[in-house]
């Protein structure tokens, strides 16, 4: 548990566990997540999220990457309060929203929205696009809906149709329009383009980028595709087995990864260039990601880590500042 | 495994107890007076009171219930004085109607119902699975469509109607079968089966139709599974693909339903037994309900619940054998 008290979200430089990069005065973070935890099941529970800490500033995109099952979606769901955390705090715009009841939570529900991976599964097949976008509380009238549809690249002619009449990319646009209806300040995007074709993926990425600029949105962008994340994010957090193992500015993480896992992850991503692929150094990690039900003792990456030494098997490395700037790494031998 | 079995058996006992209590409660709130029934039309009010006392109906309901449940395991004496009745283990009480022990009534009738259920089940399983399988493999053809139309007709025909038609054609017109007259299997399997064939067919035609549709749907779904494509990609014979890889998975949902259906029927097929005049548990139930014969109704209800919960347990065990994912869970 970090010392950050919910009443005083990490805003001031120095106390902020995740301080601003250019040391200049930066506004307080929009979202501060502190030591967030989620354990499923009572006896020998699955520690899906095991003490996650990060900030998201207004108007920026924080990428959350990691392999399947490392706890990305669970983290996202706890932030929008689709799930109750079993520990830690979520502070939004200076207010601890972790334990708010449904009534007090309502204004925050408008501020924090979510976009999902499967565009169809998240749209009610029996509602028209207009109903879906205007939401259960009918936030918007028809004109507002049409305006919003145009914002996301659809048109008035789509308002009366049903989800099944759309392609995957269009359905995702509807999902985005719905998320925008309440004029949120933060959108948690859980793998918003993973289910889409490459050419459509680019369209949605562009749309999200345009919306961010126009509406001053902040994104928590959850994805397993590191190439996409490099394109959309300002900062990146890498998760492994329920923990953040490295967090920092995009360029720092991608150009000089400091955690052995980040390095392996990046080197594993195939690059669409055969000549690069031919000469590229590639770290092929042995084994599979371990299960969060039985994490290895010490550094949870140690069974797959080429650099692991004795201390790694006994002591879990804390997330600590690494080098200049805001980068933090959880490794005894970060380099 | 043993622990699992014990836990499941305990659950079965719990369910039976609850069903017993509910049945008791239902009879308690019903306006009929079993004592008056049992005593007869000419009874004076005093006599009825006497009978009521002897039947224990004047006691509070929880006492009656407690007595009933303990009686099953220890036996008990009903009433007192010269009219006291010794009721031995397992005691399910005496019928109000004919003063016979309910247990004896049940055990007398059970072989009939079991014969009926098992024979019909064999018939409908064979017929339903075969028709469903053929329809699934010939999906979309004229054969599939006509088979499905036939099953729809067969499933929607009332049992009375099917029974009458079969009687008319097979017994009266063609004279291929005798009019059903139950013979226990101890009198020879031929006589037993010959007399039961008609009820079997009646009951099976209803269930076979449902099972055919179920098998078809399940088989179509299974044959679209990626692992079936893998089996074909391995170069297996289509026969192997269908039976070893397809049918085995397709049958799992059917096992569940079969367990429930069989469990229910073992405790009597009320309409079929009634139509053919078979002296089974169903017939007993039918009469008991009409005469508000509480001990008998209670007995058959418990019997039915027993069979159904037992069948459920059986289904789960069979499941664990066919689906390894269940076994490890």
């Amino acid at each position: 548990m970090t010392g950050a008290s919910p009443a005083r979200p990490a805003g001031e430089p120095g106390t902020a566990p995740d301080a601003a990069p250019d040391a200049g005065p930066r506004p307080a973070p929009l979202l501060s997540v502190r030591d967030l935890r989620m354990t499923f099941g009572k006896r020998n529970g699955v520690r899906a999220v095991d003490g996650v800490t990060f900030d998201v500033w207004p108007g920026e995109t924080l990428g959350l990457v990691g392999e399947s099952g490392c706890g990305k979606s669970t983290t996202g769901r706890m932030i929008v309060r689709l799930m109750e955390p079993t520990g830690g705090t979520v502070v939004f715009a200076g207010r601890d929203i972790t334990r708010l009841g449904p009534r007090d939570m309502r204004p925050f529900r408008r501020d924090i929205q979510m976009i999902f991976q499967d565009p169809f599964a998240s749209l009610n097949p029996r509602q028209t696009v207009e109903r879906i976008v205007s939401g259960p509380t009918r936030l918007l009238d028809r004109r507002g809906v049409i305006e919003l549809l145009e914002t996301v690249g659809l048109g008035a002619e789509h308002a009366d149709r049903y989800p099944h009449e759309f392609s995957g990319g269009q359905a995702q646009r509807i999902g985005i329009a719905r998320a925008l209806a309440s004029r949120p300040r933060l959108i948690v995007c859980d793998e918003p383009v993973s289910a889409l074709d490459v050419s459509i993926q680019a369209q949605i990425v562009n749309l999200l980028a345009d919306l961010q600029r126009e509406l001053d949105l902040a994104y928590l962008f959850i994805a397993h595709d590191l190439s996409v994340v490099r394109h959309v994010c300002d900062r990146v957090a890498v998760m492994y087995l329920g923990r953040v193992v490295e967090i920092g500015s995009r360029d720092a993480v991608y150009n000089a990864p400091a955690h052995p896992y980040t390095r392996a992850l990046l080197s594993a991503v195939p690059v669409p260039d055969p000549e690069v692929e031919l000469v590229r150094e590639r770290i092929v990690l042995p084994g599979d990601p371990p299960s969060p039900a039985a994490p290895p003792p010490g550094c949870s990456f140690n069974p797959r880590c080429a650099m692991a030494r004795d201390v790694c098997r006994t002591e879990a490395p804390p997330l600590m500042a690494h080098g200049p700037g805001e980068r933090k790494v959880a490794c005894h031998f970060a380099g | 495994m043993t622990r699992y079995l014990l836990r499941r058996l305990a659950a079965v006992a719990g369910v039976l107890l609850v069903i017993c209590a509910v049945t008791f409660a239902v009879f308690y709130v019903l306006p009929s007076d079993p004592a008056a029934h049992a005593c007869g039309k000419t009874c004076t009010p005093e006599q009825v009171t006497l009978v009521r006392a002897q039947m224990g109906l004047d006691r509070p309901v929880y006492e009656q219930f407690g007595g009933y449940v303990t009686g099953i395991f220890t036996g008990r004496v009903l009433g007192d004085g010269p009219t006291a009745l010794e009721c031995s283990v397992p005691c399910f009480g005496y019928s109000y109607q004919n003063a016979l022990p309910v247990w004896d009534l049940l055990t007398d009738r059970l072989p009939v119902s079991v014969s009926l259920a098992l024979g019909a089940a064999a018939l409908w399983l064979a017929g339903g699975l075969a028709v469903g399988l053929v329809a699934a493999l010939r999906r979309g053809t004229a054969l599939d469509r006509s088979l499905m139309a036939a099953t729809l007709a067969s499933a929607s025909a009332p049992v009375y109607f099917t029974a009458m038609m079969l009687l008319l054609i097979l017994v009266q017109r063609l004279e291929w079968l005798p009019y059903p007259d139950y013979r226990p299997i101890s009198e020879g399997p031929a006589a037993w089966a010959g007399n039961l064939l008609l009820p079997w067919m009646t009951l099976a035609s209803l269930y076979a139709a449902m099972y055919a549709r179920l098998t078809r749907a399940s088989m179509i779904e299974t044959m679209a599974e990626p692992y079936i494509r893998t089996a074909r990609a391995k170069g297996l014979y289509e026969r192997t693909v269908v039976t070893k890889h397809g049918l085995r998975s397709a049958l799992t949902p059917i096992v569940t339903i079969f367990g429930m259906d069989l469990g229910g029927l073992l405790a009597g097929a009320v309409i079929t037994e009634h139509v053919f005049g078979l002296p089974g548990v169903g017939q007993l139930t039918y009469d008991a309900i009409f005469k508000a014969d509480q001990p008998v109704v209670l007995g058959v209800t418990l019997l039915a619940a027993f069979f159904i919960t037992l069948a459920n347990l059986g289904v789960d065990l069979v499941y664990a054998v066919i689906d390894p994912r269940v076994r490890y869970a």
Partner: protein
Amino acid sequence: MILRVRDLRVAFPAGTAVDGIGFDLDRGRTLGVVGESGSGKSVSSLAIMGLHREAAVSGSIVFDGEELVGAPASRLRELRGRRIAMIFQDPLSSLHPFYTVGEQIAEAYRLHLRVSRRVARERAVEMLAEVGIPEPRRRAGEHPHRFSGGMRQRVMIAMALSCEPDLLIADEPTTALDVTVQAQILELIRRIQRDRGIAVMMITHDLGVVARVADEVLVMYGGRTVEHAPVREIFRAPRHPYTQGLLASAPRLPAGGAGDSPDPAAGSVAAGGSPDPVAGGVAGPVVKGRLRAIPGSPPSLLAPPPGCRFHPRCARYAAAPDDACVTEAPELRELRELCVLGEVGEVHAGRALRLVGAEGPPAGPVHRTACHLAETRGGSR
């Protein structure tokens, strides 16, 4: 040549899913097939396996000198699993949940090689060891749900390779896997290919995977081949607007070593030597997060656009509309280099086109593309 496909067509009652594709594949080589979902990649591979039941397959598939289109079902069955093997995208649902992995691997071996149960069982253990499953003897007795995603795909590979096939078709074998596991599986396939000299048809939508494993690439769009070339050519000098768009729209990592460009889209277009606003859309200053998207969406099988199937999304057509694009399906033509003066990036000026048609015999690795306006680009640089 182990596999020779010509003018392959697969028609479902609802429409034609594959409309005339062709390629050659040698032993020891890998053909990458890329395209968006619904472009006909899986349908083509199932046609080669002879696994279509409701579709009409026409054209020609010659496997090791033997014509497979129209061959008796029993012959196709003998080849399947024995000489042509296939692995699939989702390794969990592709394995039967009720049988142990050992049983499932042994099943095909036993059938095709007519060996005893015991021998087949030994073979299964041996294959599991070969694909890198620890404790193969014990794991052979376990059911698929006890394996992780990567291990299941290893099991699928063990199963596919147990009979020593000559051709392995891998239909998106790593799409469902994590990158670190994908790297393991690609490495495994590569090693096995090298050891045994088998031909591999690697189907994927990931251009990075193609760049890593393929010798030659076939790009599919709407059931047709739009471009077919050696892997370097596809990435260095894509000639079809769709290929160019695909490359430009794919986000990428810093190219580690090779001069990294801050705007990768611009980088790849430069590499492609394509000055036209191919990937359409929105040129202009590069903003964080912007990619060069191809507008619109892939065609529907039921009502494909007339003429060139790509024309509703094609920037080249939009820039210089040509009636042929709307009325006539472009044929796959060979780009023949008449004089090679400089290195790859500079040769475009010296290219000319020669019509060979979809049926034409591609002698050696050539660069073919299906676009009416392919030549208009040639000298524009």
